[in-house]
């Protein structure tokens, strides 16, 4: 299954949207999307790390033995996040303050590990970079949309500017997050007519734990 470069780039935005279709990174998605700017910040920071980690892992794919690939990926990703964090703190302190806790949180963002395992370890450096950009855009878009909806309904503001009169504060807390998340997943399913989630490519066989789990061949997790 060879895809052209444009397809790789655009795949992540809707068809294989990491959050809304692949269901990866749900935890940071729910936790950080209390406002549009938070969602956007988390998305941009994760995208940067995703692009670099995809490239590095793609470069190292022939060197890393299969048995220890997961720890290797984690070391690379964690190291990368820390390096990025220190540079941002040193040279862009305003951005660092704005991103706050989201920066170190990227280490545990499973989209990055997921793409390393599912894509970068099997594809060329350029393709991996494009996949990283595409997935990052999809992640950012999903987070921004969730953040914007929750901020609008939960706090009555957009980017901190007041818009609505009486906010529905439950949208700012966890149940509202799940509700908006569910609605967006349903919306994406509607747009793609349910085709998106049926793709085998990222089904159980694509799961990082597939080899340990051993159930993938039977079509269950």
């Amino acid at each position: 299954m060879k895809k052209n470069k444009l397809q790789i780039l655009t795949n992540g935005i809707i068809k294989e949207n990491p959050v809304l279709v692949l269901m990866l990174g749900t935890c940071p998605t729910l936790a950080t999307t209390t406002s549009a700017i938070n969602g956007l910040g988390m998305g941009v920071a994760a995208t940067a790390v995703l692009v670099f980690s995809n490239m590095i892992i793609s470069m190292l794919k022939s060197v890393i033995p299969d048995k220890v690939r997961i720890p290797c990926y984690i070391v690379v990703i964690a190291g990368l996040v820390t390096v990025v964090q220190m540079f941002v703190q040193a040279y862009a302190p305003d951005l660092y303050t704005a991103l706050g806790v989201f920066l170190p949180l990227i280490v545990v963002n499973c989209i990055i590990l997921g793409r390393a395992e599912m894509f970068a370890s099997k594809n060329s450096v350029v393709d991996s970079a494009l996949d990283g950009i595409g997935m990052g855009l999809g992640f950012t878009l999903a987070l921004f949309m969730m953040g914007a909806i929750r901020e609008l309904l939960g706090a009555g503001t957009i980017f901190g500017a007041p818009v609505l009169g009486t906010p529905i504060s439950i949208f700012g807390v966890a149940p509202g997050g799940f509700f908006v998340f569910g609605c967006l997943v349903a919306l994406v399913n509607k747009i793609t007519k349910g085709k998106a989630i049926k793709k085998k490519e990222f089904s159980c066989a694509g799961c990082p734990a597939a080899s340990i789990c051993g159930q993938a061949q039977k079509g269950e997790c």
Partner: protein
Amino acid sequence: MNMFKDFVLPPLVLTIICIVVSAALVATESITTPIIEEQQKAAADAARAVVLPGASGFELLSVTDMPEGGVDAYKATDGSGYVITAQAKGYGGQLKVMVGIDSNGLIAGTQVLENNETQGLGSRVSDASFMNQYVGKDSTLEGIETIGGVTISSNAFNKAVQNAYQVYGQVAGVAVAGNERDPITDEVKTQLFPDVTAFNRYAVEGEAYKAGNAGYIVVTSNAGFAGDVTTAIGFDLNGAVTGVVFTETNETDDYGEQYTRKSWREAQVGKTSADQLNLIAGATVTGDALRANFTEAFELLATLPEAALEYEGAAEGYNGTMTVYVGIDAAGTITSVRLGESGDDFVTKVEDEAFSSQFIGKTSTDGIETISGATMSSTAFIKAVDAALAAQKGA
């Protein structure tokens, strides 16, 4: 089976990757750490310079025994003043305020660091029009006007500034106006004991009075939901509650406010311990404050029968009349001396431990040494103590 490929290579590769990544981290850290530290210091100094204009560098002071509400204290390296952060409870949690105090002890600027007050109401204490009132004020903070409709947050701001002055007083080693509450009025005393005319204050930590031969009044205060809840509690000679008066409370209507109603106050009469209080569900914060008030009051009450009473004495000082409060126990021995009012310039000297401790344990002022450089004031102080001793003998 290839031993090398299966068992040696995987850990080896992982180790190498770890080493490379660690090296990259070390390299990055050595580049960025000095820059980060510089920036953090500059950002913090810049924030402090906002409240103390003109100062360029600051050093953190270690404050042993930090006064209540104090957070931290910095001294300008050029000696132009101090920047102190302190907090007080507002409507939406702790209101944290940074106060710049210049070398004359006057406020150079204030800045709200954390404001969780209601948007559009309490948040207005961050407005320049409110904060600018404080510029140039000394520790008495006289003439500050609260924002109409924003009383709780304004008071919290004021309290935070007072707390900052307590820290200042300690780090700069100067006397500052206390932020103790005012003593209760005679009206409150009469409300608790309508038949008693003579109330004598006890010379104890805290505020307590002997109500003639009818009982005691103990005043205690704890933080409630919206500022302090201060109660004056009357006790009979057997230690049972005879009445409760709220002297300071801003608690929310229909929640904490329920405690201040006559029905609740009267229901507490006859209680002999804080555990017997009737607490109202849904007003937990106020209830906790009251429980603490009663607990402290009962604790203080237990010490009162043995405690010394305070007697007032007055004498002519260098600049007007000086009043002194002297704690004298039943045997006529002085247990404490406390300066009341005075207009003297060097009056803080008589509050020095070296001078005031001379009185403790004595039954007269014979042999007390005056302070050179403040002879008039210290002589007046001694005379006032004499007057208090005479008042005790006459009583």
